[in-house]
């Protein structure tokens, strides 16, 4: 039980998907211009993260591992995640149209999102149990959401500030992201001591 929460919080704060592991940076930079888009993307990431963990975890432990094909995990996972997202999209569109309207356009984007694949591979690498793997994925999704929401605020502030011509646009955004990333380093060691 304690293990679960330790994983959950350390993935959210210390090993933050975007700010410490630098996964999913493209969507992080692309979709943080306004709160509405970043919210849709975050919800979609959490959702797909959980579903693809539930799918890839058994595939690894019941198919690849017994056959001694652990090295195929990257290829198979890409395939499985892409297929899962496609299937999900079709099902949601039919069964829950409002949900599809809210996050429909973000689902195809996630198909090739490195954040999802990265978390799947990390779950295997850390040899988590199934419950812990789900927790880790949930935490990764929540951490992504946290980073997105924080950065939307930062960028809104950047919009109205007087930035030198050469720093306008992406340079100032990247500098701000790096400072936010450094700020998250301050969480290092907090969780270990909290749950020890």
């Amino acid at each position: 039980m304690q293990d679960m929460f330790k994983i959950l919080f350390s993935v959210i704060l210390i090993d933050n998907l975007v700010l410490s592991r630098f996964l999913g940076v493209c969507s992080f930079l692309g979709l943080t211009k306004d709160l509405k888009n970043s919210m849709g993307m975050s919800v979609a990431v959490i959702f797909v993260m959980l579903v693809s963990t539930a799918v890839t975890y058994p595939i690894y432990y019941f198919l690849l591992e017994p056959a001694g094909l652990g090295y195929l995990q990257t290829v198979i996972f890409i395939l499985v995640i892409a297929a899962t997202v496609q299937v999900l999209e079709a099902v949601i569109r039919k069964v829950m149209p409002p949900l599809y309207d809210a996050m429909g356009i973000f689902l195809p984007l996630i198909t090739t999102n490195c954040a999802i694949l990265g978390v799947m591979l990390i779950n295997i690498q850390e040899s988590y149990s199934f419950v812990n793997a789900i927790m880790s994925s949930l935490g990764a999704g929540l951490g992504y959401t946290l980073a997105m929401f924080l950065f939307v605020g930062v960028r809104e502030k950047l919009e109205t500030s007087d930035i030198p011509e050469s720093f306008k646009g992406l340079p100032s955004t990247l500098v701000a992201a790096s400072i936010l990333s450094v700020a998250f380093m301050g969480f290092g060691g907090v969780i270990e001591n909290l749950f020890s």
Partner: protein
Amino acid sequence: MELIVLQSSNILMPALIGGGTALLLGIVIVLVFRFFSVEEDPMVEELNSVLPGVNCGGCGYSGCLGYASALASGEDSNTSKCTAGGLETAEAVALTLGTAPQEYIPQVAYVFCQGSGEYTTKRYEYTGTPNCASATGLFAGPNSCTYGCLGFGDCYDVCEFDAIWIDDGLAHVNSENCTACGKCVIACPKDLISLIPKHELATVNSCRNHWPAAATRKNCKIGCIACRLCIKACPVDAIHMEDNLAVIDQEICIHCGECVKVCPTNSISEGLLKGMAEEKALRAAAKAEKEAEEAAAKAEKEAS
């Protein structure tokens, strides 16, 4: 021999598992798409191809597809809502739907404020970042009328058609260049810009202040004081009061000009073309002034 068998099984297993997974997933996807397919109106696709596809949102929907599906489902019967495509698109949409083309009324952005430096004063000296959004954050901006135009030109910055010009702390729209894309409408932090039907004699109450008359009089010499004279003068009941502000319904207005005559503060103004003529005169005057200045400087230089 044994080595070859071993090696081939080493390759065969992964190939089978990989290929099998791919095949299985492919079948699952095909089945799911068959069972969960959503039937779409072919009309939507057809209409979408007729629309310009720039997804500007000028029609009031999220994008061209949104407008197309609203038209196809009969939710919206107005075929001339596309501002980017103009008359041609309106006709093409009507043709695709098989309905008679409706009268296409082009729209134009209009600044609902006349409070230039001549009519308003500054409450304090603003030295922050020179844009309206930042200035609004500091006690609603330096302008004496907190509803009025700040003139830092957030609308000017977003306009891609050179249709906005700032003069004496007030934004103006050049209705010739304006394409009614609506970007300035979103950019203005004071919500002063709206799209109105582009009519030569469009009559608008160019004010957005909701103060009672005394406060308006104190802070702006040209603001609407909610005296209701225009409402009484209007022959078609196109004007109504909204929280101390006279609002003219552009769809009912017959451009008779009665309200313009009775308005005591000249808050109601008439005619987009007049604005444009003014603009031309102003630009010419500014140019002449600059030239005269340059000539004077030149003459001075030569004299010395």
